[in-house]
């Protein structure tokens, strides 16, 4: 399938497989879009009714993970869903960094620079933690 491989290991190698995009049925993509649109609309409605600080809570609402975990568990099993949640924990810590960077730089920097820095902070924290976790697991003796 022409997978792009990034590091060694038996079944835990980091791979990029563009061909996998054809695998999920269209219904799964529609569900993901619906959850994303729904959470965004909810955050917007809460902002209008209760103010932007309350709406901001829902910018980190785990509805998309909920949809994704359910779809993964149905198609690939609970073990895979479990791994998805463990990965999302690292992504969620990155979200804290994203919000902190926006809170510190928006209004001081141009918004495009603030959001770009925040997105980079998300990537650095979440992918950095993922890499650190892999190193720790690789150093453990196999049972």
């Amino acid at each position, binding site marked *: 399938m022409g997978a792009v491989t990034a590091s060694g290991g038996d079944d835990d190698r980091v791979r990029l497989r563009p061909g996998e995009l054809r695998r999920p049925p269209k219904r799964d993509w529609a569900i993901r879009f619906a959850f994303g649109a729904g959470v965004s609309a909810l955050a917007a409605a809460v902002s209008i009714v209760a103010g932007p600080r309350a709406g901001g809570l*829902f910018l980190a609402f785990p509805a998309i993970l909920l949809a994704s975990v359910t779809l993964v568990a149905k198609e690939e099993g609970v073990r895979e869903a479990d791994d998805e949640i463990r990965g999302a924990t690292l992504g*969620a810590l990155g979200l804290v960094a994203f919000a902190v960077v926006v809170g510190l730089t928006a209004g001081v920097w141009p*918004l495009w620079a603030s959001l770009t820095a925040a997105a980079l902070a998300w990537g650095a924290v979440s992918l950095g933690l993922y890499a650190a976790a892999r190193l720790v697991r690789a150093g453990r003796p196999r049972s």
Partner: protein
Amino acid sequence: MGSRIVEVVLKALVGGAFVLAFAALAETLSPKRLAGVFSAAPSVALASLIVTAGFTGVGDVLASAHGMWIGAAGFALYCVAAVPLVRRWGAWRGALAALTVWGAVAAAGYGLAPSEAHSHRPGVRTPSGWEP
């Protein structure tokens, strides 16, 4: 009122599109744990903050970010709670039950954390601070 409806609809469409983009990236990645990182990508946040800046200005972006600090902390604790709950009750019921953790953290954080006077920060421009 009309512009508020347009704002909600626009956020929904852009948010859905950003979620799809990150989901597509996650779908191509393995192992699953790495793909899971992208299930907590700032897709909804990026979409909402960009549209917010266009409609109501950087003051609201700042206030939203302060709310998001709390929501993101709740998201991380949601994940910690979801792992054992999904194992015990299955994916749908376990992941749904863990939402109570997010709700508790969000409610407590929103009630206890001081509300910052974001609109008084020097240099914050309203109503629109978007600079393409």
